């Protein structure tokens, strides 16, 4: 993952009651308005993303697709409140995002489970923070959802990469967030595990109907999972084109053999290739 200007951990803003209450109600509509993020690195100003405006409907599954360096993770981090925008704003159900909160569950690429807690402890953490009466029973429920109830008492280091990511998904969902942000969650997994995880994710999503924003650089992954794909442009990052993936649901991996899929696939690949070449050529010049 690229370095980003991390807010120092001590500069948390005052917690507000709204974030806690919002976890109960709300629909999960995301509005991104004229968003720009600039980083200062070694005194140099870099524009990570510029003038992004998107609307995501409640319950929609969207993907941010682009080559590395297009600012897709930055955009995701702003939506999650982990990075503050230079200009513009993100709203979830109309309320501006100012800091990470339980409204947005986040699944990171890897190594984000708390290694000192068991799988159960990790998943119970969110419900416990929100003052749930019995966090562990909620945690068991969500571990069962990802098929890991038998591994409740294992520490993350004792689990395989795929299992760790399943625990990560269960943990992010256990607070019942309206929005689930996923930052290349299957990027470190082997191809077979990855494909099974994608199917599992769709199954879970069809049950919970959370709004999902899924960051990936894998075209197949984006097409298979999403209702809508945002193909991103590079340097500075922006939305190059949005593509509606009207392939119907539920989807099985065989959908990749359909003609419609083939057409979408060619179109998206061409877009991404253009952007990748742009970066490639400017770097080798």
């Amino acid at each position, binding site marked *: 993952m690229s370095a980003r200007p991390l807010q120092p951990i*001590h*500069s948390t803003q005052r917690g507000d009651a709204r974030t806690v209450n919002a976890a109960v109600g709300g629909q999960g509509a995301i509005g991104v308005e004229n968003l720009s993020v600039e980083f200062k690195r070694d005194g140099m100003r870099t524009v990570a993303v510029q003038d992004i405006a998107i609307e995501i409907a409640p319950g929609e599954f969207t993907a941010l697709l682009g080559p590395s360096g297009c600012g897709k993770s930055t955009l995701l981090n702003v939506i999650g409140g982990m990075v503050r925008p230079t200009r513009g704003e993100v709203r979830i159900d109309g309320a501006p995002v100012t800091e990470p909160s339980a409204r947005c569950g986040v699944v990171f690429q890897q190594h984000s489970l708390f*290694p000192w*807690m068991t799988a159960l402890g990790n998943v119970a*953490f969110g419900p416990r923070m929100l003052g749930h009466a019995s966090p562990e029973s909620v945690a068991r429920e969500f571990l069962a959802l990802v098929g890991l109830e038998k591994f409740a008492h294992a*520490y993350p280091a004792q689990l395989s990469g795929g299992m760790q990511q399943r625990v990560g998904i269960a943990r*992010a969902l256990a607070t019942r967030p309206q929005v689930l942000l996923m930052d290349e969650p299957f990027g470190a997994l082997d191809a077979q595990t990855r494909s099974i995880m994608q199917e599992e994710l769709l199954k879970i999503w069809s049950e919970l109907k959370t709004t999902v924003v899924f960051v990936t650089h894998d075209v197949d992954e984006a097409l298979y999972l999403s209702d809508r794909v945002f193909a991103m442009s590079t340097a500075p990052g922006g939305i190059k084109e949005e593509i509606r993936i009207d392939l119907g649901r539920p989807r099985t991996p065989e959908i990749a053999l359909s003609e419609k899929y083939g057409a979408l696939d060619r179109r998206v690949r061409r877009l991404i290739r253009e952007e990748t070449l742009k970066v490639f050529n400017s770097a080798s010049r």
Partner: protein
Amino acid sequence: MQRTLARESAATAARSERPPRITLRSLLAGPGWVANALWAAAGIGLFVLVWTLIARRLGNPVLLPTPAAVLEGFYQLLADGYLVQDVLASLKRVFTGFLIAAAIGVPLAMLLAYFLPLRRLVLPLVTLLRPIPPIAWIPIAILWFGIGDKPSFFITAIAAFFPIFLNSFFGGTSVEEQHMNAARSLGAKKASLLIRILFPSALPMIWTGLKIGLGQSWMAVVTAELIAAQSGLGYMIQTSRLNLETSYVLVGMVTIGVLGSLMGLALSGVERYVLPWKRK
């Protein structure tokens, strides 16, 4: 390669239902604690042998008594009850000082790791105080606390504080940003972040600090007792030296070495319960 061979020969042995022969050689090559103990015993035995030869050759019990004479002195002091008294006096000082240092050092380190203004205020002070060795504090400890337990508590606490504080602090500042973000996106606020994320993620380093701190404290107690006390192993070494009872001096030194090692081993022994997720 060797391992596969070993596995094959074990399989063969199992098939013919003949237990593999235990020889001294197979014991020494083994990975278990028995092999480690044998190697340790051999090393110490060799040392004692060389010591005996040199002491015999020297023939001067004031300069260097033989190990046998030291053992004799050990029995005498044990029978008199002095040794037990001195050990208990020293242990009490070490643990009191160590606990004071841990009780201040760990929470302070966590707060400084979390709150930047506090860090900027306090850390320069710690940096300035750190190079001052515990022994340099002894005069002031005597002025403030007189002679006896209190100045020793102070010295052992000073000695343990810096390793505990510094390790804890670095543990706290090296917390994964991703863990903090994950916790915040799960609804954690300041206090929970500090107690449930920062602290456990720093715990391996805190534990290292505690181990080093206890060792430092144990070394410092002897220093303190040489000057600022009238009991304890340090005091015993000092008075024995004045009486030219070199064998007692060595009894004190060996006791310090053995007890210090045992403390270290004990801490390593409970480590897997303190850091269960680090268990192999």
